[in-house]
């Protein structure tokens, strides 16, 4: 399927899919297109965030929108993450559909009170009478010495907060379709993006479409081992698969796309076939999404694994600044391939 493919640039895309007359967009452009559609389609939609209207335009992902829709609908806000998240929630309660945008995941801890104690619980506390149609976009930073406070990936924290949905797109196609679905969902949706996917190119239909918030996708068919890869790790897994193919190892890659709800049937089906599981995440090791997935596999398909599950993720350490240390800190395709080798050896 063309929309499951990721390319690192337009030329690659043209080579593979250009001949079919398909349209390519970057991940960044897909986000812009989704938001442009939402703003156009629904007068209640509002983008809020520090710098959404400035020339940087959130790494380009809101480019041109303030110009088209004005600063009331593409609204720069003060530096007051908790209060402004509360404002967004209040606006959502009273009929708007805000999309709140953070340049970095790292600013989410500032608004945990409003996210955890308010947005996540509001529908429940009111017995379902009032809901919070809010999307919170936030981007994972990485590299160039961004260091401990500017490169966290915190989606794993929100797994433990009932009442939130969690989305982590890996492709331009999904970025657009999931963002539209998130904005329409009527619940608070945490929408995690990875800075390093922004330049990826892929097939994106021009029309509006939704990618459902509870369906993963098989990015690659394989028979020897399953890699469940999250966000940016999907592309690394694809690279690892290509390398492993040369060695005769056939990798299946599952991209859950939404972490809450999590498409366990898809994962279990794949694991039942391959008997080997590697979980590749862009976050710290302990207590993250990988643990939950592995635990559910152990609960629901206890006999399925022929070798122990392996998690590929970041060390249990804050991000170091030095480039020399970043190299050690961040796992990549190579680390995934090694993990696959381990499951093949051990099982």
């Amino acid at each position, binding site marked *: 399927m063309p929309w499951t493919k990721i390319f690192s640039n337009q030329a690659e895309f043209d080579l593979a899919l250009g001949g079919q007359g398909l349209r390519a967009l970057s991940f960044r452009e897909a986000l812009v297109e989704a938001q442009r559609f939402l703003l156009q389609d629904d007068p209640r939609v509002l983008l809020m965030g520090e710098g959404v209207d400035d020339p940087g335009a959130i790494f380009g992902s809101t480019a041109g929108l303030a110009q088209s829709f004005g600063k009331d609908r593409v609204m720069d806000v003060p530096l007051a993450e908790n*209060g402004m998240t509360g404002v967004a929630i209040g606006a959502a309660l009273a009929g708007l559909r805000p999309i709140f945008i953070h340049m970095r995941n790292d600013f989410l801890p500032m608004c945990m009170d409003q996210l955890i104690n308010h947005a996540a619980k509001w529908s429940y506390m009111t017995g379902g009478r009032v809901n919070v149609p809010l999307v919170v976009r936030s981007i994972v930073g990485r590299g160039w010495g961004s260091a401990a406070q500017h490169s966290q990936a915190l989606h794993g924290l929100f797994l433990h907060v009932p009442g939130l949905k969690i989305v982590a797109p890996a492709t331009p196609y999904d970025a657009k379709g999931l963002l539209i679905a998130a904005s329409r969902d009527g619940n608070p949706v945490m929408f995690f993006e990875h800075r390093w996917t922004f330049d990826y190119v892929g097939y994106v239909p021009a029309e509006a479409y939704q990618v459902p918030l509870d369906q993963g996708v098989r990015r690659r068919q394989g028979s020897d081992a399953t890699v469940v890869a999250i966000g940016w790790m999907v592309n690394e897994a694809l690279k690892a698969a290509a390398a492993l193919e040369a060695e005769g190892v056939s990798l299946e890659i599952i991209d859950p796309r939404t972490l809450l709800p999590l498409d366990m049937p898809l994962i279990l089906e794949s694991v039942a076939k391959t008997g080997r599981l590697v979980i590749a995440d862009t976050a710290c090791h302990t207590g993250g999404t990988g643990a939950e997935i592995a635990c559910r596999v152990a609960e629901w398909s206890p006999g399925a694994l022929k070798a122990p599950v392996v998690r590929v993720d970041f060390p249990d350490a804050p991000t170091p600044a030095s480039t020399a240390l970043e190299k050690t800190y961040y796992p990549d395709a190579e680390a995934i391939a090694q993990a696959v080798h381990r499951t093949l050896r051990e099982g």
Partner: protein
Amino acid sequence: MPQLSDIPPQDRRRLWETMLLIRRFEEHIVDVYGQQEMQSPVHLYIGQEAVAAGVCLHLRPEDYLFSTHRSHGHCLAKGADVFSLYAEFYGRAAGCCRGKGGSMHPCAPEVGILGTTAIVGGGIPLATGAALASKLLGQGRVAVTLFGDGASEEGAFHESLNFAALKALPVVFVCENNFYATASPIHQRQPHDDIFRHAAGYGIPAAQVDGNDAAAVYFAAREAVQRARRGGGPSLIEARTYRWKGHVGPSCDWENGCRPKQELEQWMDRCPLERFTQRLLQSGDLTEQDIRGTLERTDVMLARELERAKHSPPPASSEVWRHVFHETK
């Protein structure tokens, strides 16, 4: 200084009736709480009734109100249904939140109460956001947030004042300064107790009023609500008042050493309901007979609703799993 006569007669009467309703609503809770069937942490409002009454009289049903853990009086003044509140406090299926919210989280969307947070300060940005929605949607609705002196210490208060001033939002910030947060006196938490002073930093008009004087609250709120409604932006009202009961539950907290008894007695001498009753008796708006009649009608109604609530069925246990998410799009 505006006079009582500047308040239209029907408003005088409504102010008084609202205060009476709140007072008796709470006293009925005090009466039954010892039965241990109302299993919800009730934060009683007795002593502060003039604030809710004086503010909410200026609001329309579609205007928004965001309250706190101490929400009962606010909800009643805004028009919430007595039965569905009591039923909620009893954890019943017929409660305004189907029994899932309890005393700290009532909602009544039909009168602009979109839900209530018990996180101190948490409702202030929510009201600011509702005001933003009203403004962007051109609805002309006003949002009011009532909160305590303790809440004014939370950063969210300041973040909200800043944004409301920046965007000239139709929101009225009403701080009920009762000089305590749980058992902590304000002088252990703030350098002085004139909370209204923070408004100046944002260029927001502010008033400090006697929160035990329904007329004073009424005038300050009228100005603020009118300003908001005509697009003049936010206001801050500090209403100085006192709660008679403990922070939570039906007893008085001087009994366990939380506050000097004498302080409570001084404030009880300034009972907002009693004072306003006397003024209306003097002005001829009320007669002793009115009082007796209204009191009786109110009590009969409250007792009936409370009994109905108490005997209404609890939610089915399957409700635990419902409403985590919004069910239809």
